[in-house]
């Protein structure tokens, strides 16, 4: 088994060099290491100037998504061993502007999340003192899968439409809209339709399905988009044609 692995990291430090460049490091191989451990080794022992985001190291905070050998992954749950004998190429997530090294611009994604109104919308809200809204396990399972998104943005880095049409609202945001649309406590679908059925919305999607392949939480954004195209659009047209009808 290899004792050392070469890690090639795409560096970009705008104050020093206007162009990105690959820098190669050599790290010891350890069976229990994930890619993130190798990066932390580089930062602690070789080159403190390497910048990247990470936090929970258990696949739930969504910070550490990067391209590893051209595939978007969470580096905290991707084992180094998988890439032996190396070298391993690590780059920032595709289709996002890069701030520095492996750190990408996230504000655009955050705006897209906000645009789909990801909160419970009701005509009337009952006070908390009056108790919970009922939701059976079956009703919960209607949207549960879409509620598992950790906003890691891997699906954007895998989506060719995001690459071509930066304004495309994108897989995670659509899945999040569906998370609320399918929640029996919510009445806000019509308001979300304005965004999802707009020019930047679901019809941009060309059904490549890569978003669902790379999703670390099995949210299946592609399925969410498909389901929206079928039921969501029907309901929207019904509401336009029959504005006073109930959904």
């Amino acid at each position, binding site marked *: 088994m290899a004792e050392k692995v070469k890690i090639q990291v795409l560096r970009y*430090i*705008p*104050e*020093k060099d206007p162009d990105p460049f690959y820098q190669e490091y050599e790290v010891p191989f350890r069976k*229990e290491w994930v890619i993130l451990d190798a990066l932390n080794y580089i*930062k*602690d*022992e070789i*080159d*403190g*100037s390497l*910048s*990247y*985001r*990470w*936090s*929970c*190291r*258990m*696949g*739930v*905070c969504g*910070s550490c998504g990067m391209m590893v050998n051209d595939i978007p992954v969470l580096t905290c*749950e991707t084992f180094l061993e998988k890439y032996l004998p190396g070298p391993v190429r690590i780059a920032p997530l595709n289709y996002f502007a890069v*701030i*520095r*090294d492996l*750190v990408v611009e*996230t*504000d655009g994604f*955050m705006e897209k*999340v906000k645009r789909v*109104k*990801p*909160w*419970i919308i009701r005509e009337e*809200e*009952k006070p*908390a*003192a009056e*108790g*919970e*809204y*009922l*939701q*059976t*396990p079956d*009703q*919960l399972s209607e*949207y*549960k899968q879409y*509620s*598992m998104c*950790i*906003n890691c943005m891997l699906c954007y880095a895998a989506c060719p439409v995001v690459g071509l049409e930066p304004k495309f609202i994108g897989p995670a945001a659509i899945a*999040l809209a569906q998370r*609320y649309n399918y*929640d029996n*406590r*919510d009445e806000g679908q019509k308001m979300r339709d304005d965004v999802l059925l707009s020019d930047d919305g679901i019809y941009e999607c060309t059904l490549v399905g890569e978003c669902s392949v790379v999703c670390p939480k099995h949210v299946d954004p592609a399925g969410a988009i498909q389901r929206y195209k079928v039921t969501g659009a029907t309901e929207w047209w019904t509401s336009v044609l029959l504005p006073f009808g109930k959904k």
Partner: protein
Amino acid sequence: MGRYGPNLHDVLIVGGGGAGLRAAIAVAETDPNLSVAVVSKVYPMRSHTVSAEGGAAAVIKPDDSLDEHAYDTISGGDWMCDQDAVEAFVKEAPEEMIQLEHWGCPWSREEDGSIAVRPFGGMVKKRTWFAADKTGFHMLHSMFQTTLKYDPIRRYDEYFVTSLLVDDGRCQGVVALELSTGKIEAIGARSVILCTGGCGNVFPFTTNANIKTGDGMAMAYRTGVALKDMEFVQYHPTGLPFTGILITEAARAEGGYLLNKENYRYLQDYDLGVPEEKPVLRSMELGPRDRLSQAFVKELEKGRTFEGPYGPFVHLDVRHLGKDVIEEKIPFVRELCRKYENIDPVHEMIPVRPVVHYMMGGIDTDINSSTSLPGLFAAGEAACVSINGANRLGSNSLTELLVFGARAGISAAEFASKQQKPSNKLEALANDERKRIEKKYFSGYAKKSERISVIRKEMHQTMERGAGIYRTEASLKNSRSKIRELQERLDSCSIRDETFTFNTELIAAIELSYMLDVAESIIESALNRTESRGSHQREDHPERDDQNFLVHSLAYRAEKESPRVEYKPVTITRWPPGERKYG
């Protein structure tokens, strides 16, 4: 926003986790005209609340009562809890949890659609609400998404706070470094709430995320606010070896067994009851965390633990629950074990060992989340309002974020409404801070070449050896002088990266300075408490001593010397100190 121009707000919240977001919504709902800002070194959904697994406690079922929740909490905390705070906590908990349900949190449900609850360690009734075993994740995302609908909530994402702005005897904002540009500037406010979470990274082996470096605790400490009860550090009994990833208490609540290398449910030897096939509340595997982690150490001493490449461990066995229960109730446990240990708990036992998990102590606050510095408030793990005493019960901390996050928001909003114009010195103070940071970290690399990672490692070692599950005067004194030495070494240490764009080496250096300050408060408080209580176990003082130590420790920073430790009484309302009984 806009009302005062840029970088000036009514209420400023540092930290965008559960407590910070709950506080932000409370401010927005208290007075929609107030400008409220959330400053965080990460995007809010990355906050460590996201990692919480098992659940959040609140009385909801007819067979339960507020008094029972209060008693479990107080006895679990070995009578170090302030009982007025606990009473407020258990009373406000149910409505806060329902409010979160209204905001969309996907709580697990009974067949009829009402809220489902599960048992949890140290609790005599089932009262832990859960969203499978990703409770913190769902709470955080529900709350974060809900904040998006409030226009007055302005966010400063990826701004790292380097100090509090104090002028005229009150806190008037923060100095923050924008990560993407390195720009250091003042963000003024009429009141500030610290919701920066814990400091598990002071220790080498922790469930805490990398970002949990005690920032808020250290900043408050540096302005002269006391850190309270810092000697009480919770070890969670079941972390995965090497990674320290938490295996939730829910695994035991659903019926998991802890077994030593003789395949024996060893907890029966430690006054925790007799083993039954099904889980019994407040017994055996459902005992409190401090006692379970201490039992592990005793098993280790008896030579009955396994030896692995990452230290000793015991087994957590959930196989008898069957695949269906595991998939429905603790799917994340299965996911984590498969991913990180390459084992499937449906068929194999899980290796586990105690791991640093939570700080019972923190910034000293009163029941309204106020600190001793006017204008400064704190909530969540960063704070110590004293509901957790000497040992927190599992599933109380998520609820605490809601109850005291909301209280902090309301208090800070009231304080902001009453205050006069902010000081005109804030810009000048921020300028001084910028110069201090640049001088301290960006100069003299050539002659001072020590890496900050070396200092961090030595801090880890000395904290584990000296201030771990069992402590002695000698071990603590050793650690005290080591921490002092490390502080001096960090003082004369520069970083290699002298750029301004997303300089994570600079952030790591400042975080390390925060952790060293927090570490000294932990050690000094532990050294001065010559008794054993809850999570604080002194081998040289093994008994609880209510005569002398039914008091909170208050550690105050002292320039260039060890902190000064003072005491104040524990508030007792209806539950006089008694023996902790389990089993």
